[in-house]
């Protein structure tokens, strides 16, 4: 079996894979990074979004072999080493942007990619960007609100908690 090596959350990582092994399976099964989730098999739901060389990627739609030599960042690499949450993670907690938590890793990774591209997105831009991330619990209300808040925008006028 071929071996793949990459940098994951700043640390070197390698493992034996089959040619057909998906990046998400390598992360979950080989590296034990189970924060990245699999919610569908058609690249629709976005629960598996990670960053590869700084770009948001659906890890279910990329072979592990394609990430050879890449810098990969997963949800486990977002908080500070002392446990302090990333500002986007903190905003999700502050604004109740998650319920069951299953889509949350992908949402946070997508939100981080959005804010890197567009530091103060409008509500419409956020909703449009999240087209590839499905949440069944929140109705997106508090996810959109949390991302607005994480970008430093005033959310006090948005209705309800």
């Amino acid at each position, binding site marked *: 079996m071929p071996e793949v090596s990459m940098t994951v959350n700043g640390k070197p990582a390698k493992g034996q894979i089959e040619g057909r092994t998906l990046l998400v399976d390598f992360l979950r099964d080989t590296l034990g990074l189970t924060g990245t989730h699999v*919610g569908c098999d058609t690249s629709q739901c976005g629960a598996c979004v990670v960053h590869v060389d700084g770009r948001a990627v659906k890890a279910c739609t990329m072979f592990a072999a394609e990430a050879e030599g890449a810098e990969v960042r997963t949800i486990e690499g977002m908080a500070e080493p002392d446990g302090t949450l990333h500002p986007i993670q903190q905003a999700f907690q502050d604004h109740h942007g998650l319920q069951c938590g299953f889509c949350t890793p992908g949402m946070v990774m997508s939100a981080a990619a959005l804010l890197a591209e567009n530091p103060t997105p409008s509500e419409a831009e956020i909703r449009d960007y999240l087209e590839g991330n*499905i949440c069944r619990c929140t109705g997106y209300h508090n996810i959109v609100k949390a991302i607005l808040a994480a970008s430093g925008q005033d959310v006090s006028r948005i209705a309800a908690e």
Partner: protein
Amino acid sequence: MPKDGGIGASTKRREDVRFLTGTGHYTDDINLRGQAHVHFLRSDVAHGRLNKVDTSAAEGMPGVLRVFTGADFADLGGLPCGWQVTDRFGQPMQEPRHPVLAHGKVRHVGDPIAAVVAETREQARDAAEAIVLDIEELPAVVDMKAALEDGAPKVHDDLTSNLCYDWGFVEENTAAVDEAFEKAAHVTTLELVNNRLVANPMEPRVALGDYNRSTGEHTLYTTSQNPHVIRLLMGAFVLGIPEHKLRVVAPDVGGGFGSKIYHYAEEAFCTFAAKALNRPVKWTSSRSEAFISDAHGRDHVTKIELALDAENNFTAIRTETYANMGAYLSTFAPSIPTWLHGTLMAGNYKTPHIYVNVKAVFTNTVPVDAYRGAGRPEATFQLERVIDKAAHELGVDPIALRRQNFITEFPYATPVAVEYDTGDYHATMDKLEEIADLKGFAARRKESEAKGKLRGLGINCYIEACGIAPSNLVGQLGARAGLYESATVRVNATGGITVMTGSHSHGQGHETSFAQVISEMIGIDADQVEIVHGDTANTPMGMGTYGSRSLAVGGSAMVRATEKIINKARKIAAHLMEAAEGDIELKDGRFSVAGTDKSVAWGDVTLAAYVPHNYPLAELEPGLEETAFYDPANFTYPAGAYAAEVEVDPETGKVTIERFAAADDFGNVVNPMIVSGQVHGGIAQGVGQALLEGCVYDEQGQLLTGSYMDYAMPRADDLPFFTVDHSCQTPCTHNPLGVKGCGEAGAIGSPPAVVNAVVDALRSGGHDITHIDMPLSPSRVWQAMQG
């Protein structure tokens, strides 16, 4: 007030940190040493005779441990149904066997035929492709009315027909209802479809069976809303494993919405195979499998008639509904179109005579069971649509017509067997008019029209029966289980508290809100309280989470157990302070003697309970741990009023939700932030049903909407911000927290609001339209506009 907030505080959720950092512990994150993987070969035809399942080639494939077929389960029990409905002639429903693996026949696309267990998931999947099937395809029945015609192909050869039951409720009401219709000044009739949905929690189902040969103990890790129910059903009825040798663990579960209540074949298989192979056996559903193996929801076809007198008072309701059961009876399927639907047909209105008829039908489709709301959305949708239609026919304001018929005196006994304890429907409607800014609608409509768009306003009310359920009542109605809830409150020596609850959290935030309740009761910080759930090994027998029951029933059990704790702690405190028990007061975590400055801290009392050196051992056991089971006296009746404002593009038929407001009465509220979040999510699912979602089968029983490419899940850009309010509070009169439940309201109240709004929009554009069936896709709306 404790520093982290007791009852009424929007405390941030403690469970969020693990979910936000990728350290949640979902079932698929569990991997056991020596674990094997199973892949299920599923039927790709809807109906067929299984002549031969040739597994010989598959058995020789790399990594394959064993291939199981229906024959391996022929001597075991089938998947049980937890509710027996009695039909209008006094006969029990027809109840077919539901085998773990199909045997003799396949009855829907997705019916599991064989199970390949191999060293890896990929090897199992590869080997399944080498199984050779000889299936004689039979004509499928998909349409419910066609399924009931003479000569229709039978889903189950050993049943007399495809009719599961023909239920009448209340049968004795028929004469009075018919008389009311004869005397009516006006009758409005509407035929409608409540579209079939797929629950689609984001976490697909997973089952991992383990067996310890030296102790004979089975463990099943599973994505369940109710691990004790799975233990009971699977242990007692399918595999014959006594409960003390069967542990069921439902760790972090990624959403359920009803679809993870039921006992599924894959759970029984993994438990069985783990013993047969002496290896842990794991199954992880793909989303494509979920579409053809998770129980679906809704799927009713209804004709409703509303009779009114000359003053526009509702005088009678008569309905006839066809309810799709799918190919087998899922765990609670028979109860949904009956006891969770017929009993809600009074809605918020004082209609004196009601008769509900439901024909439940077997078809060659995936089994149908409860999905968020479960029966109550179906009742609300037909009632609120027919009221809107009546208002239009009579030329009266739809809000005024509703207000005129509101129930205003409580308790109120409906003609469909339930008694509403409290409510104030004018208050929620008043609140809705305010938060939805209904006065501003006319101006907003003008703005839309100036852009070439049609704007509509849809209003509706809902009531639901939650806090499921009084055991003695549901037992009379056919339930084969009790519906109490349990809690053990364990006070540790140094004062911290561990609560083991039979409720299960899969997104609802119990770990936070349940702790708030204890914090409020004892006056200690919520971070001194830990909530444990989801493991039959360490929680008392509980019935789990569905039917908006967790706080109303499970929370009540926790309150009762905590009351026992406080009573005992008071005795200990009295002893420590050498005072009379009746003089002891508990406030802010300290026991004091009334009228004196003597007091002891909570921690002093708890330590005394476990280090009983100075302790009334003759009268009182040491330790501080209590269990309570709470069986509710009645259902709870959350209610509210919703408003949707839509724009319709007359060029394309596309509908957009411009504004959405919800005014709910949930009784008392423990954590307003969590409650609002529950309503948001419910509204999104209701809007999804109204505009986007719909399960489509072709005539051969092929599921055409079998993935997220075809089944339209609501996405962020399909929805606006919502305006929700739960300040109207008429507390429940019969549970100690005065709470009613909030989990399903959004999904119940929103579909009729959206459809009413679209019909209103189209009428404003001169289109004489009375109804469009959900989902209101652009093509359906556009076609309706073409007449």
